[in-house]
């Protein structure tokens, strides 16, 4: 067995590879961080944005549902659609904003409404007000819409976006299409028949159907929906075109997707799934950040540094089984306890390494960085800086502590 050392050296250890992630930040204009819930995506997005500012770029990060203390550190006091600037000792600029699905959608409606009255009628509709919360994929779609807007209509050099922490985190790939389909629904066609004055017979069929639906959910609900689809008439095409442009932007050269994962079996499986889905959409993963990696004590890499330092390299050959055997023969003694502890961490590290090896291969040649367990959760700029030390290792940081 090669042990985790090999993977780590390949991953974060070599400066060329580690540099590749910094290159993305230096060269691309959009970086999308995606991955399943609870893997540290928001933190990764903030770290990437911080690096952008450090490289002298005018950077904005769009976060989704950050933990409260991190939100405070980023100056995000409640939902606001306007980015706020974070002052700090870096040559570029760092701005942050939190996604507000509803107001992003509102802005789109206003933009594509044929008249201010049409816009107002839609915004006031109860059915419309439910869409952002109830229609799955809307949050994902609006995250991408926000990204497009920030890229297209502002002068930020780099837009970094976090994706929603849902099981369906990649729904944004087809959310625009799904939304168009929803707005263009057959039922919608039936519903707007009265306003178009088409054949009476169709109208009757539609009315019968609606009456039956009303029996289940009540008449008010159906009336709201009908009013919404009538108000929306004529706007579908604008939405469709916009969605197509968003999708083009996601697949463009200036856009890079970074996959964020943790080394557990289930999250690694989901990361594989994400990489596949992105691949199907013609999008390559340009980087992989693995958070919360256990250190591999005595297996050749000092896990604390994620490969920056080979640590006690002399015992690279000592397999996890060695410590485990000693733990068993010395059970019940103090030294036996020390061996048991070592063996336990080596078992975890080997397992994590095994999970990650396949993932690194699946995203190759994308650079891979490992971020170890940290002493505490990241909730300030200093904490982001600490993570940045692993994600973007500099000569000065390596082995520096």
């Amino acid at each position: 067995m090669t042990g985790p050392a090999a993977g780590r050296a390949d991953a974060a250890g070599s400066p060329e590879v580690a540099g590749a992630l910094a290159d993305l930040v230096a060269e691309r204009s959009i970086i999308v961080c995606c991955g399943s819930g609870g893997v540290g995506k928001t933190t990764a997005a903030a770290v990437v944005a911080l690096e952008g500012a450090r490289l002298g770029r005018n950077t904005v990060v769009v976060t989704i549902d950050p933990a409260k203390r991190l939100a405070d550190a980023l100056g995000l006091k409640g939902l606001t659609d306007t980015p706020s600037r974070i002052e700090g000792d870096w040559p570029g600029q760092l701005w942050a904003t939190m996604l507000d699905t509803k107001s992003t959608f509102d802005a789109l409606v206003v933009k594509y409404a044929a008249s201010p009255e049409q816009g107002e009628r839609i915004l006031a509709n109860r059915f419309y007000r439910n869409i952002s919360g109830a229609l799955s994929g809307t949050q994902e779609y609006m995250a991408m819409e926000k990204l497009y807007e920030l890229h297209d209509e502002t002068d930020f050099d780099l837009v970094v976006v976090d994706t929603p922490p849902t099981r369906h985190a990649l729904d944004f790939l087809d959310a625009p299409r799904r939304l168009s389909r929803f707005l263009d629904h057959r039922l919608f066609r039936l519903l707007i028949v009265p306003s178009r004055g088409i054949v009476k017979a169709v109208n009757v069929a539609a009315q019968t159907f609606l009456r039956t639906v009303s029996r289940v959910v009540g008449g008010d609900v159906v009336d709201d929906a009908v009013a919404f689809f009538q108000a929306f008439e004529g706007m579908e095409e604008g939405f469709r075109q916009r969605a197509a442009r968003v999708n083009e932007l996601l697949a463009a050269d200036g856009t890079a997707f970074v996959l964020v994962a943790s080394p557990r079996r289930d999250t690694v499986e989901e990361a594989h799934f994400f990489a596949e889905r992105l691949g199907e959409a013609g999008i390559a993963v340009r980087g992989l950040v693995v958070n919360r990696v256990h250190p591999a004590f005595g297996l050749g890499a000092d896990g604390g540094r994620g490969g920056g330092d080979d640590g006690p390299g002399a015992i690279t050959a000592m397999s996890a089984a060695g410590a485990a055997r000693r733990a068993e023969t010395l059970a019940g003694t103090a030294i036996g306890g020390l061996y048991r502890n070592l063996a336990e961490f080596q078992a975890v590290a080997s397992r994590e390494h095994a999970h990650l090896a396949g993932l690194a291969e699946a995203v190759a040649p994308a650079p891979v960085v490992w971020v170890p367990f940290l002493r505490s959760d990241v909730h300030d700029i200093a904490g982001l800086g600490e993570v940045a030390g692993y994600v973007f290792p500099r000569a000065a940081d390596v082995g520096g502590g």
Partner: protein
Amino acid sequence: MDPEQFFAASRLVIVAGKGGVGKTTVSATLARAAALTGLSTLIVEVEGKSGLPAVFGQGELGYDEVVLAAGGGPDGAADVRARTLTADAALVEYLRDHGLSRISRRLVSSGALDVVATAAPGIKDILLLGKVKQLVREGVADLIVLDAPAAGHAITFLQSARSLIDTVNVGPINAQARDVLSLLEDHRQCQVVLVTIPEETPVNEAVETAFSLEDRVGIGLGPIVVNGVYPPIEGLVVDEPAVAATADEADVSLRPGEAVALASAARFRLDRSALQAEQVARLHAQLPLSQLRLPFLFSAEIGPAELDELARVMLAEIDALAGLPQ
């Protein structure tokens, strides 16, 4: 308290927690623990594909029930079964049971459920919860464990009944919502078990979720499960000379470099254990719920053997709880 009494205290246990805290593992552990006391259990999933069958060493789940862990054996355990519910399937069933099968296929196949669900948010949730309620009422198992959607959505999910009663004020959906609400509010039938890990953000979110569930849903909270706690190891020392001295005492010769590895691994364990203890204490101070602590498993990825180990720890933890205040 007696685990049998504990599990018999409610027919439905809803397991909730944020992503990454091991909610699915805990659902499986609770179910297996209950089965070990002789109660037949059914795990219900509502979010589609999860790691649940893998924990039992099985393939994918579907709408139809499967047995994940057969009972019997020396323990006289009962079966653990599982199934996945989807809103579409629940809707078809619901309409059929209410004499509306004629429109059910059309509603689902035309995708109109999406339109209706947008008109009345929470309708998919209520269809799922309505199905769960039906399972509880039919007594398909002694205990039903519902693996709820992750954190934020769990509150919306469980709140759906209350919101729908306002949106849809007549008809069968309204009746369904009232029915579901009465189940959720009945503390003898239903309780929520929250899951967290002993780290800062998950603890904060567990506290927030607990208060939201009590205030906004009126649902009863059972003990909170603290997952992934490092089991203690006695006598760890964290610097090389002390490690060397410990080895000398036992007449063990260390291989080159081993003292560093042993010492740094010990330091890591003790550091993290201290952080975990801090968070467990903070959780205890902020949330007046009993805690059931499950160990972090170093040995292997969770499969059937590890699940049994966790289930036995769970039973011991329940045993150590004080009786329920009545």
